[in-house]
């Protein structure tokens, strides 16, 4: 309520129209903003375009990235990777049933 009332007061006192834009440096902000956004994304775009050439130039010096395994949290090696353990018993049952049914029907 308070925030709002305060905002309302500000609002009532504010300039508006073209004058407000000029006084608030609106044009300069817009030009600066668009320039910077374009500059940053153009720089990224150029970097990406140059990346394959950069990598092939560096090729011989670049290390092979091995396929790493996922270590448990950097501590606690004496750990049980819980996710690997949860083969759902119902799945095992389902497989067992499927195999059983197959054999039954084959007879």
């Amino acid at each position, binding site marked *: 309520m308070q925030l*709002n009332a305060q905002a309302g007061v500000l609002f009532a006192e504010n300039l508006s*129209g073209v004058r407000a834009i000029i006084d608030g440096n609106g044009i300069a902000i817009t030009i600066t903003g668009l320039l910077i*956004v*374009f500059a*940053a*994304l153009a*720089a990224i775009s150029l*970097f*990406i*375009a140059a990346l394959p050439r950069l990598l092939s130039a560096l090729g011989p010096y670049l290390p092979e990235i091995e396929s790493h395994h996922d270590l448990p949290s950097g501590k606690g090696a004496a750990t049980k990777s819980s996710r690997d353990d949860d083969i759902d018993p119902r799945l095992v049952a389902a497989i067992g049933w499927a195999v059983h049914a197959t054999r039954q029907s084959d007879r």
Partner: protein
Amino acid sequence: MDILLEFLKTTGFYQMSPGNLGMLLVGLVFIALAILKDYEPLLLCPIGFGILVGNIPCADNMALGVYDEGSVLHYLYFGVSQGVFPPLIFLGIGAMTDFSTMLSEPKLVLLGAAAQAGIFLTLLGAMFIGFTPSEAGAIGIIGGADGPTAIFLSAKLAPHLLGAIAIAAYSYMALVPVIQPPVMRLLTTKSERLIRMRPPRQVSRHERILFPIAAFLICAMIAPGSLVLIGMLFFGNLLKESTVTERLANTARTAMIDIVTILLGFVVGASTDADQFLTKQSLLIFGLGALSFAIATASGVLFAKFMNLFLHHKINPLIGAAGVSAVPDSARVVQVVGHESDPNNHLLMHAMAPNVAGVIGSAIAAGVLWSVLTK
């Protein structure tokens, strides 16, 4: 029986105002759009339910609402009002985003820059109507079509408008399939809509690992104000692409982002208490928000046409509309509108490049606005 009478005065029925009733309807519409229309349900459903919670009228002596010191919702709202939640969401988004398409078609990145014109033209419009420069900057960012960025910037520049800006940003993100197509059809010819794109090339693992590091350094050096948002986005992406931190990336894009998404949506919704929310300013913000989405779409499409003047392999200008971000809805809209003209033209994958570039673009724009407009 004074106690009973006293209690009845604290019930919602006794204190209900027309404004609250109206907002309850808005909340129900949000939930209905989420469930029945599948419009951004992960955002509209929490926000909609939050609006219901925020507009049950309460007695003054109980600290219940988002704005009441010491209430639970106030503590949860801290993550919004101090801008803590948006970077955490960006971390999760980074850990789920695949920048491959963008890496294979770097020139499409510029479309993500062009669409940010919507932000700055809306800023001028808001100044024209009479908002202060800081308020105008926060309103303009709605055109970035990126909820977390909008929340982050308005928390810094115009906290008193945060609720309205957040609701407007998420509403229009959900309404992208309604707002964008007419603008796209108006600004393109049939033959332009039929242009086919070349299939993207394969991207190597080295490229995908180096990209988030280099792109972060480029953005942060040019616009330090975007440091936190951009930093978290590319940090999340490095966790994903490095392969050695897969378990961290996996948690960031599941449990972590889900928890933050639930809480953020819920408290943003709950911050729309009608007393604070239903003002002339909010209505103006909603009008400017719709405008900004239209301008952003138009800017993207027109810039694509401008680029075609210089390019040998022409870009399908519909793809420019995906530069507004609103990931992934605006990319889907491109696919759908392209499909109308040629059912065999698949633009979705190509549209992802300006789409994710638009996320970066609006974060940078937010950084610039923060830097320029903060005292």
